[in-house]
């Protein structure tokens, strides 16, 4: 069976730099920063207190068929982003419900903020004080299920908890399902909310920055945890053309692998292999890539290792490489989904999002991290890197649609 080409026709984002694709794109262009003092949990006792918290989120604006209070914060982000993506795709909800639309959402922590809350209650007041309403919110499957319930979708709902690369995994899964004709549409991406557990875990690993995140900078000090969600609406090219949809970009393919080496240390050779897998799956040469959206966490280990892998594959012809984690913090399972959205608008609107907070480039890292200011660029093919604890790597490749001759609007 011939595989169908898959395109992105709707985007939804909840982030610390804006809600919805217009505000998110504006934030990327401006090099906005989501960083503020964390209020989501008590940071007493930690020497670092900043994060990419989302402020001013009003779930009732986007969650219509479920009680927002019945959902944890990550699921609220997830449903809100899905509604934004559907509205952006300009497709009728009834059509989605009557045809086969699936959901795949990646996450690191699911509803960890709820677990934080339950554990605190348990410790301070005992198990009998635990609210059943909160217990029901705990499982991570709520992140995808809540979207399926909100829009009455029947094409399956799956949550993929492959940590910090999970958004790309969910997009890859969705791409496969549409390309083989198993479903008509997919809502896919990632979501996570700030939680004490992840903050503390990274803190104990010595990787939380004191103030800001500075990927590829000589003086970088680590990550800042963040939160948000990014959901993409996917359909076949044939479907998009038939309904006259606006097409942001085509998903050309993706690469996936596992370091099978170390639980937390990134592996240069394995990342290089994943990049090659992605290029092979997308049917492109490395020389065709115009921009790389980096995993770019701002830790010493990641940025040198990722840069080394990029240099190994791309050789002397290094494309610009930037990290939007400098703006958003590390939004965990949402990170690569939000970065994929950034790639899609970068291709569509012709600019490269910057790496902010940049002062001095680390000579061991990539030489051009698009420092501090967005850059106009005609992007034909871009790749989005994502790596995770457990050695889980997933790299997605996006292309401007007309590169293979199809008409664009």
């Amino acid at each position, binding site marked *: 069976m011939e595989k169908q080409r898959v395109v992105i026709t709707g985007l939804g984002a909840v982030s610390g730099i804006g809600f919805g694709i217009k505000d998110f794109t504006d934030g990327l262009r401006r090099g906005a920063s989501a960083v503020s003092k964390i209020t989501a949990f008590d940071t007493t006792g930690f020497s670092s207190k900043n994060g990419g918290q989302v402020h001013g989120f009003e779930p009732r604006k986007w969650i219509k068929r479920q009680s927002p209070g019945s959902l944890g914060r990550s699921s609220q982000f997830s449903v809100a982003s899905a509604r934004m993506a559907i509205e952006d795709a300009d497709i009728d909800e009834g059509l989605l419900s009557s045809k086969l639309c699936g959901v795949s959402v990646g996450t690191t922590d699911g509803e*960890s903020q709820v677990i934080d809350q339950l554990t*605190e209650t348990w410790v301070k007041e005992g198990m009998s004080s635990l609210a059943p309403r909160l217990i029901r919110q705990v499982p991570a499957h709520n992140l995808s299920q809540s979207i*399926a319930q909100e829009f009455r979708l029947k094409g399956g709902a*799956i949550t993929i*908890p492959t940590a910090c690369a999970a958004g790309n995994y969910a997009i890859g899964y969705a791409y496969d399902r549409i390309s083989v004709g198993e479903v008509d549409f997919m809502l896919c991406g990632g979501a996570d909310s700030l939680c004490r557990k992840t903050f503390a*875990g990274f803190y104990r690993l010595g990787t939380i920055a004191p103030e800001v995140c500075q990927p590829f900078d000589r003086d970088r000090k680590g990550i800042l945890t963040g939160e948000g969600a990014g959901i993409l609406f996917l359909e076949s090219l044939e479907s998009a053309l038939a309904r006259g949809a606006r097409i942001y970009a085509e998903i050309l393919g993706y690469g996936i*692998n596992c370091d099978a080496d170390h*639980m937390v240390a990134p592996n240069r050779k394995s990342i290089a292999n994943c990049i090659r897998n992605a290029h092979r799956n997308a049917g492109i040469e490395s020389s065709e890539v115009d921009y790389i959206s980096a995993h770019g966490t701002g830790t010493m280990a990641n940025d040198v290792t990722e840069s080394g892998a990029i240099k190994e594959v791309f050789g002397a012809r290094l494309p610009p490489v930037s990290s939007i984690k400098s703006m958003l913090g590390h939004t965990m399972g949402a990170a690569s989904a939000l970065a994929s959205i950034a790639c899609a608008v970068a291709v569509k609107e012709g600019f490269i999002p910057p790496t902010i907070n940049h002062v001095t480039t680390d000579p061991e890292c990539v030489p051009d991290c698009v420092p501090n200011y967005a850059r106009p660029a005609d992007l034909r093919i871009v790749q989005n890197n994502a790596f995770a*604890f*457990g050695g889980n790597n997933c790299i997605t490749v996006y292309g401007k649609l007309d590169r293979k001759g199809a008409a664009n609007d």
Partner: protein
Amino acid sequence: MTTAVITASARMCRESVPVRAGAGTGASSGDWFRPSDYLGPRGYRYQTSSTRYLLAAIKLALDQDPDSPGAYPESQRGVAMGTNFSDYDVREGFDRGILAPGGARNLSPLEAPNSSVNIPASTVSIKHGCKAFSLTLTNPMVAGLEAVLVAAQALATGRARWAAAGACEGTVPERLGGLLACDAGPGAAATLILESAQSAADRKARVLGTLGGCAARFWPEPLWEGGAESRAAIALEKELDRLALPARGSLALALPDHPSAVNRSLRDALTRSLAARGLHAAPVAGPADDGRYAAVSSLLQMQSLLDRSGPGLAAATSPYGHVVLVALHVSG
């Protein structure tokens, strides 16, 4: 598309503690699992119980076929695992540590990775050199079958030629047991070794079963209203058509027997639909049919299909509406 075959199957659960040569004799009801019997004397100190069960189940599966997975390069070996609760005790332990005097200093960096639910799958990847992919799935009750489905799809699309597909759980925390459709049980793990049919034939591997079509759908309770005329029942008909089941005869059916409305509805609809197709559904029993092992339960029951020859259908539901169907055929 490449067909996937099952070349090994193993489990680690209290109801069917396997006997291993050289294993100790401590498998009483209160001490049914000793990791050293399966994993050697050291190396698992910082692993969660679910990871240990999983590694033991994988070890037993690989013992059945010593040439596997070494017959394939590491880049062609993948892992897909389902779990619902593997990380909960670690996550809560983190929170409790932070809330105690001393705060974050109570946390061990060596245990930090275990707070991520994908770690059991990645531990298998590290131990057995599986570099093609490492995937974790988490839908309630159905994640084990979903892992089989996703692994089979990965083989079909050429991302790997060998995969360990399975599920694992630690003890389900008492306060979360209500999220299941039954009483929560202790931990368990189960795994199937999948290979592309051509590759298995090339190396003359023993084939336990051949996977057919698969489907993952979301049919919550309201969609089942109306019985045979319900939207879910009608959608099920289309899926059964797609699965390419045999025209008539007996079909072994593995479906955990938990009391959720969705599960009852699917059972009724399957029985009705299969009968209308001239198929006699013959339910098979697993070691724990009531779903007490969460994501592992459906896989435990699917393994029972391998004990009898002929066509089979493994199905699983969540109380919320997730439905997974996996068809297979077991040669005599």
